[in-house]
């Protein structure tokens, strides 16, 4: 199994509070991704990173920010959580810069279930 750890695994918080989710990898992969998974929508990309301090927006980035200060850690922050951000959040990794890995799959962590009341 790919060495991807997400924390916390579950969190319940109130509207308006800041929330930070963490993704930690031990594979030394360059690319990291944050997705959210909601019924009827499948997995949707929030933000991704292609290196330390290099990040970009995905298709549902409003209300989210990210940071990557080390190769192994990718943080997702909800500055002021809203009920619409209740979801399951998944982190994924890949490294298309590795020789022979240009078109390899992404590998996923086991997710964080976030409930915003």
């Amino acid at each position, binding site marked *: 199994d790919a060495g991807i750890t997400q924390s916390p695994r579950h969190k319940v918080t109130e509207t308006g509070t800041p929330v930070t989710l963490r993704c930690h990898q031990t594979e030394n992969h360059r*690319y990291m*991704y944050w997705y959210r998974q909601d019924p009827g929508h*499948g*997995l949707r990309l929030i933000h991704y990173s292609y290196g330390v301090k290099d990040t970009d927006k995905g298709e549902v980035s409003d209300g989210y920010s990210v940071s990557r200060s080390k190769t192994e850690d990718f943080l997702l922050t909800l500055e002021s959580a809203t009920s619409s951000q209740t979801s399951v959040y998944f982190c994924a990794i890949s490294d298309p810069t590795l020789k022979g890995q240009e*078109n390899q*799959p992404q590998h*996923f962590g*086991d*997710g964080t279930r976030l409930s915003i009341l």
Partner: protein
Amino acid sequence: EDQVTQSPEALRLQEGESSSLNCSYTVSGLRGLFWYRQDPGKGPEFLFTLYSAGEEKEKERLKATLTKKESFLHITAPKPEDSATYLCAVRDLYGGATNKLIFGTGTLLAVQP
């Protein structure tokens, strides 16, 4: 716009009853089509990558096939442990260096003993 549609949304089979799941896709150019399995409370687990029409991949009771418009995941003589949600995703040939995937909403498979 890239799009992935999976059908059926849910499928219930008896143990040993073979069937197929469908993944229809629209992309500018297909760089790869990926199948994942997802168990409750877990992240997606990679199964197969298909790159070009006519390609087939097999793993135990699963066989994935690809045409220019769709992919099928054939399940032969399924067992209860095959119960899971199966996700399909595509990577666009013109998607740049981000390696982004576009996912379908999945098929929930339940295999009853």
